[in-house]
């Protein structure tokens, strides 16, 4: 009898717990995951800010409130142009990006006047990485607090599902900052590295913002190779440079070959070299648009050669596999030029990416 009663009590207790606390338990489980992620993100954001301060400290003038200034700059934002009326949106976006860049340059010059040009460019990207980590932390924290306030299971479920990707991104930006501080070449520098290998030892001229170019002879073709001016962490305006070069040559360009790093899909190998067509450039839009526009205007074919890598690999020190892939790409470019153009033709080769740690 006691056993039967005990079983009934058990059943009632079990269903009471399941029915009453089921959602609460789920909420608690998801909330805990998000809280743990926020703790880690806070740690990354704090470390990232401290690292940025430490790397700039030696270049800062006396009596400056470096901590306050950097804390303020980490909150810096850019409002995207209105796209309800898309006419001229890329020009407006470029204008805003130019203003953001000039504000960043001004700020770095003020807080680190003792730094060289290369060091200033590296500080700019260090601050960009720290801003990204800080932003991710603040957004995730916002949703955690919002979820707690509204006790919304849906907010926590959605956040929890996206956490692996968010954390991967935050860890990648943090790791990138460490690489930027040391001024080491990064995976995204593959394009500039290939361009440098093609022009090494040739005289260079400056064109567009932070972009240099050089003319080399490959299989009796005039090849104009351009890249961002290293070894500082800049990407420059390759679209502007391509446009200026093509317009300067009145469209007499046989091909435009673009080389860039591309994000790999899971299962693909780092350093895999793939060919395609189109403007291989991952900018917010204006530079890509300029290349496509000028290519369409003069009916110039655009070839793309990309090297596959993950986000973290693109932002941290270049891997041996990627360096080896750059030699493969140099050979592919030469083969492409000899097979798809005639003697005397003019070809533009653009090495796209951040040229940190890559000279020329």
């Amino acid at each position: 009898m006691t056993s039967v009663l005990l079983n009934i009590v058990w059943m009632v207790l079990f269903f009471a717990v399941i029915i009453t606390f089921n959602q609460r338990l789920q909420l608690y489980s998801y909330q805990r995951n998000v809280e743990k992620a926020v703790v880690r993100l806070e740690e990354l954001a704090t470390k990232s800010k401290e690292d940025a301060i430490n790397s700039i400290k030696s270049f800062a003038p006396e009596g400056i409130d470096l901590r306050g200034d950097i804390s303020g700059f980490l909150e810096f934002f850019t409002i995207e142009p209105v796209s309800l009326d898309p006419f001229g949106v890329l020009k407006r976006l470029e204008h805003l990006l130019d203003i953001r860049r000039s504000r960043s340059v001004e700020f770095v010059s003020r807080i680190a006047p003792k730094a060289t040009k290369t060091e200033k460019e590296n500080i700019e990207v260090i601050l960009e990485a720290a801003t990204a980590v800080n932003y991710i932390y603040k957004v995730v924290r916002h949703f955690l607090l919002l979820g707690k306030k509204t006790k919304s299971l849906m907010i926590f479920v959605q956040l929890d599902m996206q956490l692996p990707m968010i954390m991967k991104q935050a860890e990648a930006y943090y790791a990138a900052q460490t690489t930027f501080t040391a001024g080491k070449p990064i995976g995204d520098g593959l394009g500039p590295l290939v361009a440098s290998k093609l022009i090494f030892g040739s005289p260079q001229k400056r064109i567009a913002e932070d972009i240099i170019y050089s003319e080399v002879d490959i299989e009796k073709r005039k090849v104009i190779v351009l890249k961002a001016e290293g070894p500082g962490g800049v990407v420059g305006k390759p679209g502007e440079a391509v446009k200026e070069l093509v317009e300067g040559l009145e469209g007499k360009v046989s091909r435009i070959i673009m080389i860039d790093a591309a994000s790999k899909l899971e299962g693909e190998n780092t350093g895999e070299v793939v060919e395609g067509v189109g403007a291989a450039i991952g900018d917010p839009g204006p530079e890509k648009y300029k290349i496509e526009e000028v290519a369409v205007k003069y009916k110039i074919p655009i070839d793309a050669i990309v090297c596959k890598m993950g986000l973290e690999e693109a932002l941290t020190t270049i891997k041996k596999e990627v360096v080896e892939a750059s030699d493969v790409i140099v050979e592919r470019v030469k083969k492409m030029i000899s097979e798809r153009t005639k003697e005397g033709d003019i070809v533009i080769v653009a090495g796209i990416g951040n040229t940190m740690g890559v000279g020329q």
Partner: protein
Amino acid sequence: MKVVMVQKSQRNTIVSIILTLIAFVLFISVSLFEELADLSMVIMIVGLVLLAASWGVYFLSGKSAPKEEVENVITVIACRNCGQVEERSFAPGDYIFKDMGQCKKCSGPSFIKSIYSVSPKKE
């Protein structure tokens, strides 16, 4: 320095499931075997403790502390004249195609040919 997160959640989930199964087997066995009827209270308490432990393992454990890995970055210096290649660890100020002065072997011009990171060997 590269930070690596080690996932522990999969192992903890398995431990949690095993604890729940043991508790379940204990509860069932009391109903199936009359000989255990006298021990029903003890088994119930043991089962509850196991269930609590299972929940504890599942909810309270998670990712372990991040493990830091030291990145191994190599700088390759080559001579333009004799092709002599020398490898050393990366030093601040190094960049690819930097002029490195005279070659130790032939006194020709040397430069940084390459810089790359090598993944640490997995244990």
